[in-house]
Every structure is written in structure tokens, then in C-alpha cells.
């Protein structure tokens, strides 16, 4: 039976919703906060900020991360910046404009109420981070500097060189360490959540494997927050860190949490192309580079083998500037990625295998000088040179799209609570704010909005509104969840087959990239839906996981994650097959305009697709949350 999904977006005019809601929410008395325990899984921008802030408020917090330190969460790798509607540049920005750009950028598949709140909170985030000592870039007058980013015509992105994510994360991490030192947060590094504990229909804890000792134990609490990031690694090759995984949200899904819009994945246009079969991950080159870099390929196939300098200006096709004159090289990610794929499909790609386009800084260097460019992007240029052994000050970079972010995630209401009471989901792990495509510099904004400002309010309301009886560690639900994890772990170790975990992961990635990547078709998706279950069956029959469960065993960790990806990949394809329209990052070949742009079908698909687990052998059940637009008019998205 389909779920009843209540968004719980408060009534009233958009600008007043969040304020009113904050007033209407119940509060926990300061003296009572210490009686509550909250589990936060993940220590990135969303999880780290939430854990620190909840502890500052007085709750007992337990925070978990799979890395050896909370400072290593993958938020750290975000390069370009964070958006905020400060309008410091006096260029016409406003909360309303950031709201509109984000909704439009998401191709009208996100909730108005959530996105407006995000735009409102964006300004508080910058203030908070400055107060923490985040070393944002400054102008000579000492004020905060801004740069432009894709999908916007105002300059609203704050940054710290090419390491904005690092600096924001270190801000949250330092706040977290402050609270750990004070005793408000108990930190569990090298700990992986392997199941959710649901008692009487409420999320009351998690099952955790200590990665060093292999001990599997239940950890109980009054509420659980998952801030465990996205699932881009289902594609094997992505810009995500090697350890990024879907296990926490997938196990929650299998305990009843709805998974929303799983097929909405973002392919980022500017990554370093794949070099060989041994490739273990892809490296992003920040979108901010498109402020000064011009994207082109040779106009004629015959010129593709030439050195870029030997292709005359007149023989170059600056295809983004040509197709999208008003946004040009700063077109949104989904559009820029598809355009790059298109020219490569035409045989005009450059570099090994013809899977690359140029990102050329020659004009910018002539205009602004090499020093200015070095100041803006120096570390990115160095990173590029280190990987490719080519000097981008002298030859254009070669770039190609790569999987970068997942807009889909666990379904949450306006309070960031899933359909399992007590289970909250924040940051990339939820589906909430980016619709079918995320704009650049908006992930950091959402992670910190959720962690610093939304959850600390809404979680209190949940705790104050519900009577939560203590749960015993020997309660049947707890014992059963721990036993499930132990059985599964033993099963992974017990197969002792012939194929490595990585070989399965690579094969799954190829299927996903081929059939559920930048261009999807009903035929291709059906093929994938046949291939994935076969691969999954082979995995459980023939995977090789050496070593023991009672020690640090990185192969075992990887195996568990890949086992979950092998299930999630299927759900993604099912979702992509059912959504008979193109929108944002989801491009169905059958649904395009005559000039090859995405064609939405608002009459049939203006909803959130939330999938519910129905058992290992039954297809997931689809529920729909209609998207209601009261304040903006849906339009064909145009960046021309």
C-alpha cells in the first residue's frame, strides 16, 4: 500500500513559513536536554554541524564516522564555494532570487517551502562561519569576496581559494572537537553503521561495527540523524571519496524509510578524463574554473588529433557559448555535461579515446595575466598538472563529465524527518532541496543549513512532542538487528569465491554509467534491470573476502558497501524507467525537445517519487508526494 507522505510544509506566505514554524514548534527545557541522547551518523558539513550544535544546546550526542577522524569527511573536497543571498555585490541578488535560481536549477522538482528556507538561512551560514574563523577570500578593503557560479547571473558565491569545503568543514570540525573536549559529544571514529534499530515504529538506535576490532554492537538513543552523504559511488568511478557509500541510508530503507528520487544523479561537466582501466576515482576541477576558462572542441573531426594550439581560432567550436549565449560557459551542470557528451558522440572529442573537451584559459591569461589566474585557481592548476603531467598555463585542460552528486536520497518532510518517526536525514543523504539538478556551491549551503540551523530546531520539536520510553539493549528488536548484521558479515566472509570485490564494483559501475548515466532510455534501463540482479547473484556466489571479521578488514568493509550498491543500482534504474520525462540530470532520450533539450512532463511527473522496500524478492512500492507550486510559475528551463 502506498505511503501517505506529508511534507508538513507550514501554511502561510513563503517568507513567513520558517519563522512561524519555529514559533509553533515545541521546545525542550534547557535542563531536560541533557536527558536526551541523539545519534548523528556522519561528520561532514551536515553531520558535524548538527552534532556540534546539538551538543551546544545541551543534548547528549554520539557521533560516528567511518574515517579515522571526523575532519576527513568528504565535504572536505568541495572546491568552489558556498552560495548566500547576501547581495554584497549590489548586483540584484536577494533571497527570492536565490530561491528562484535553485528551484529553476533543479528543473522544478523541489519543494518551494524547503528551498525558500534554504535561501533564507544561507545568509546566517556565512555569518556563522566568519565568526568561527573560516578564512574566506577577502577584497583589499577587507570585505568578503564573491565569485560567480553556474546557473546564476549574480555573484553570490563565497570561497576560500579552491578549498572552500575544507575550510567550512574544519570550522564545523573545530566546533565538534570543542564539544568532544567538553564532553557533550562522544565521538566514534572508524565506526560504520550497519543497521537501523526501529522499536515500536520509531528509530531508536543503530548497529555499529568497530572497524578496528570488528565488534558489532547496538547503540541506542532517543533520535537518530543520518548525515552520511550521497551514493555516487554506485557508478564505481565518481568524484566521491573511495569510502563514500550508501550503506547507512540503504539499511534504513530496508527498515522502512522511503527512498526519494533515486535516479536523480548529477554528472559534473568538469572532471579530469579517465586515463585507464586501473583508474580508481575521478578528480573534479571546480566549476569556478568556468568563470575564466572557455570550453571548446575542434569544429571538424579531422582536427581532433592536432595539438590544441594548432587548431585555428576559426576552426574551434565554443559550443556552450554558441548554444547558450546568455549563460555561456556558466551554464548549469546538467546542461554543460550533456553538451560535452553530445560533441564527443559526434566524434569531436579530444584526448585518449575521444572522451574529452578543452577548458582553455589562454584568453583569461592574456586578459588578466598569469599571476591573477594563479591567485584564483593556483591549487587547481597544480592538481591538474600533478595528475596529467600537463601544464594548464600553457595547454588547455582536458575535461569530461563525471558522476559527482546525488540529488536523490531518503525522503524527509519539512522537519528533515523521514517516514520513520525519529529518523532524521540531513545533507546529501536526504532528497530535499535540489530537485533534479543541483546548482554549484549549493551543496555546502544545504549541508550547513540542515546541520547548524534546521535540525537543531526540528529535532527538539520531535523530542518534546513524543513520549519516548527507554529501550533495553536486550529488547527483541535490538537483538534481532545485531544478529542480522552478524549474519550478513559472516556470509560475506564465508563465500570465499574467486572474484574480487573491486571487480564486481567496476562491473556494476559500467552498467550504471552505460544505462543510467547521462542519457537513459527505456530499452537501456530494461537491460540494466536484467544485468544487475545477475551480477548481484554472482557476487553472493563468487566474491572473495580474505581475512577475518574480528580485525581491521578493509575488503570486508568494501564488500558490504558494494552489496548494498548492487541493490540500490537496481532501484535507481527502476525509478529512471518509471519517470517518463526528462528533467535536470535525468535525461530520457525519448523525451527531448527538437533541439535536444530536456522535456519535462509537469502534468504527469510533478511529484517526488518515494520508493518503499517490500522484501528482497518483491519490487519496491512507489508512493508519490505531489509538488505544489504556489509562488512560482513552472516554465521551460532556458539558459539561452
Amino acid at each position, binding site marked *: 500500500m502506498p505511503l501517505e507522505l506529508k511534507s508538513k510544509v507550514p501554511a502561510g506566505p513563503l517568507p513567513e513559513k520558517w519563522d512561524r514554524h519555529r514559533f509553533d514548534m515545541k521546545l525542550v527545557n534547557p535542563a531536560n536536554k541533557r536527558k536526551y541522547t541523539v545519534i548523528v551518523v556522519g561528520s561532514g558539513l551536515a553531520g558535524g554541524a548538527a552534532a556540534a550544535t546539538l551538543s551546544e544546546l545541551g543534548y547528549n550526542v554520539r557521533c560516528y564516522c567511518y574515517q579515522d577522524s571526523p575532519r576527513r569527511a568528504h565535504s572536505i573536497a568541495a572546491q568552489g564555494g558556498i552560495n548566500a543571498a547576501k547581495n554584497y555585490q549590489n548586483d540584484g541578488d536577494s533571497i527570492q532570487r536565490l530561491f528562484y535560481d535553485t528551484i529553476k536549477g533543479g528543473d522544478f522538482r523541489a519543494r518551494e517551502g524547503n528551498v525558500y528556507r534554504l535561501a533564507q538561512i544561507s545568509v546566517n551560514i556565512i555569518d556563522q562561519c566568519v565568526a568561527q574563523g573560516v578564512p574566506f577570500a577577502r577584497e583589499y578593503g577587507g570585505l568578503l569576496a564573491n565569485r560567480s557560479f553556474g546557473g546564476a547571473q549574480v555573484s553570490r558565491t563565497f570561497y576560500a581559494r579552491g578549498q572552500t569545503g575544507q575550510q567550512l568543514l574544519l570550522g564545523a570540525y573545530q566546533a565538534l572537537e570543542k564539544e568532544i573536549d567538553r564532553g557533550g559529544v562522544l565521538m566514534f571514529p572508524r565506526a560504520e553503521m550497519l543497521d537501523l534499530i526501529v522499536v515500536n515504529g520509531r528509530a531508536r538506535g543503530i548497529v555499529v561495527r568497530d572497524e578496528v576490532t570488528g565488534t558489532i554492537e547496538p547503540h541506542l538513543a532517543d533520535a537518530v540523524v543520518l548525515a552520511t552523504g550521497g551514493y555516487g559511488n554506485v557508478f564505481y568511478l565518481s568524484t566521491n*571519496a573511495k569510502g563514500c557509500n550508501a550503506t547507512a541510508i540503504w539499511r534504513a530503507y530496508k527498515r522502512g524509510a522511503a527512498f526519494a528520487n533515486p535516479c536523480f544523479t548529477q554528472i559534473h561537466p568538469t572532471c579530469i578524463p579517465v586515463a585507464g582501466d586501473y583508474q580508481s576515482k575521478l578528480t573534479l576541477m571546480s566549476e569556478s574554473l568556468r568563470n575564466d576558462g572557455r570550453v571548446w572542441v575542434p569544429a571538424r573531426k579531422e582536427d581532433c588529433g592536432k595539438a590544441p594550439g594548432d587548431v585555428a581560432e576559426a576552426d574551434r567550436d565554443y559550443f556552450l557559448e554558441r548554444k547558450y549565449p546568455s549563460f555561456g560557459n556558466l551554464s548549469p551542470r546538467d546542461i554543460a555535461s550533456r553538451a560535452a557528451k553530445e560533441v564527443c558522440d559526434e566524434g569531436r572529442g579530444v584526448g585518449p579515446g575521444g572522451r574529452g573537451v578543452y577548458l582553455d584559459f589562454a584568453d583569461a591569461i592574456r586578459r588578466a595575466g598569469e599571476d591573477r589566474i594563479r591567485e584564483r585557481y593556483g591549487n587547481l592548476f597544480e592538481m591538474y598538472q600533478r595528475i596529467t603531467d600537463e601544464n594548464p598555463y600553457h595547454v588547455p585542460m582536458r575535461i569530461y563529465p563525471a558522476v559527482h552528486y546525488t540529488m536523490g536520497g531518503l525522503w524527509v518532510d519539512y522537519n528533515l524527518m523521514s517516514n520513520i518517526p525519529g529518523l532524521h536525514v540531513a545533507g546529501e543523504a536526504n532528497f530535499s532541496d535540489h530537485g533534479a539538478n543541483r546548482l554549484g556551491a549549493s551543496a555546502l549551503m544545504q549541508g550547513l543549513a540542515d546541520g547548524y540551523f534546521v535540525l537543531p530546531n526540528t529535532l527538539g520539536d520531535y523530542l518534546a512532542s513524543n513520549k519516548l520510553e527507554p529501550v533495553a539493549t536486550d529488547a527483541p528488536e535490538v537483538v534481532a538487528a545485531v544478529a542480522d548484521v552478524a549474519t550478513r558479515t559472516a556470509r560475506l566472509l564465508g563465500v570465499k569465491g574467486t572474484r574480487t570485490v573491486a571487480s564486481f564494483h567496476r562491473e556494476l559501475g559500467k552498467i550504471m554509467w552505460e544505462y543510467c548515466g547521462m542519457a537513459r532510455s527505456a530499452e537501456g534501463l530494461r537491460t540494466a534491470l536484467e544485468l544487475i540482479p545477475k551480477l548481484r547473484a554472482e557476487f553472493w556466489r563468487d566474491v572473495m573476502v580474505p581475512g577475518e571479521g574480528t580485525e581491521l578488514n578493509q575488503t570486508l568493509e568494501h564488500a558490504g558497501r558494494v552489496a548494498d550498491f548492487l541493490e540500490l543500482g537496481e532501484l535507481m534504474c527502476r525509478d529512471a524507467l518509471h519517470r517518463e520525462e526528462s528533467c535536470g540530470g535525468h535525461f530520457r532520450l525519448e523525451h527531448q525537445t527538437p533541439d535536444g533539450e530536456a522535456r519535462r512532463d509537469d502534468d504527469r511527473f510533478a511529484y517526488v517519487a518515494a520508493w518503499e522496500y517490500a522484501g528482497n524478492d518483491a519490487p519496491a512500492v512507489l508512493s508519490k508526494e505531489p509538488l505544489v507550486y504556489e509562488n512560482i510559475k513552472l516554465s521551460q528551463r532556458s539558459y539561452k
Partner: protein
Amino acid sequence: MNLTLKVWRQRGPTADGGLQEYQATDISPEMSFLEMLDTVNERLIAKGEVPIAFDHDCREGICGSCGMMIDGVAHGPMKGTATCQLHMRSFKDGDTVVIEPWRARAFPVIKDLVVDRGALDRIIGAGGYVSVSTGGAKDGNIIPVPKSDADWAMDAAACIGCGACVAACPNGSASLFTSAKLSHLGLLPQGQPERYRRALKMVAQMDIESFGGCTLYGECQEACPKDISIDFISRMNRDFLYAAVTTSADSGAGGDGG
């Protein structure tokens, strides 16, 4: 290309360890160092053997997870480069490469090349922050920060916490790491109220964690994948001395801002 690896294998924290030899054959010069290890590991797994454990995550030189002594040099032969961004083109066919974990008293080995760097987190916890709670911050542009100060603070804040400085130091000192955080915050107006108290507490924590003292060998700066300057250690020493003669960490009073 083909290489011979001599890799430190150690089953667990209390087990004895030793160098074990592996052949890394058919290695492409375009591979990263970690991709070379992946290749060796996949071949071990296919034979049912336990692969070499090493920490790694982002593989773009920013998370600070990876790090190993490569021929006795932290992060290997390429300056300003973390292990994950080191490529095999830095090696020659036929080379023998010795790979060991970080060696420092404060970083006990967990397994093979994986060490426990929790001490660095505790140094941050001792004072490496500005004591502001979420909410109530004033507009970000209220306090102008001279661009040169912001840039300098950013130079220090670029530290990725990998621990190479400790591993490279003959004394096993964490001075470069600690001084980078002290300088990042100490160079910004937001960090001034706690500047001296912070110096006292973080330096005290370094001692508690059994890191060695700094005698300005300068090896840390050479090993740092982010080229963090040893000048920050001088700043730390200045702040620490000032703080030591004017206040104590326990009083929490802090300095008068100099």
C-alpha cells in the same frame, strides 16, 4: 614497468611486524601510487591472501587520510604532494620501493600502514577553535580583515592533518601541525580573544600526547604536502612564551591581546 615493493606488514597493534617483499608488475606510469597498491592488493585478494591495509579516502590530496613512508620519505619523492597524488612516473622500471607506516611514538600502528592519529584531533579539541556557538553571529562584513592577513591565515589553514610533519621529524614533534592551527586562528580578528589561552592549551596537549619537542630541523616543512611554512612554528613559540609569562591555561583569562 615492474617494481619490487618491500612493505611493512603488521597484523595488529601488539603483533610483531616486518618488511615483506612483493612484485608489482605491469604498472603504468600514469597510475597513482595508491592505484599501484590497489593493483598489488587485487592480485593478493585473487589468491586469497590478506591485502595490504592503508588509509586513503578522497584521493585528491585534501582529506589527509593517506600517508606512508616511501623509501624513508613521508609521502614519497615529490615535494608538496600527498601519497594519493604521487604518480608512478616518479619511479623507474626495476626500482625497489620500501613502504612503511608513519613512525612516531604518538601514532601507534593499528595494522600494516594504518596508524592511529587521534592525538591530532585531541590537540584541536584542547583549543583549536573559536568558542562561538551556532546562532547569533553578526553580519560577516562587520569586521573587515586585511586581505594579506586572510591570505596568510589561509596558508596556515590549508593543513590537511595527515601527520607527515610528525613522521618526518626526528623528534616526532607535532609543532608544524599545532602551529598551523594556532596561526590560522591567531592571524584573524575572530581568533584574538582566545589567542594566548589557545597557545598554552594546545602546546600542553602536544606534551600529553607524547609528541617530541621541536628543535627546528625543518624536516616537517619539507615533508608537508601543503607546503606549510616553518615560520608558523616561530609564531607559535612567540605566542606561547608571551602567554606563559602573562597567564596560565587554567585561569582561562587569556592575554590582553598583546
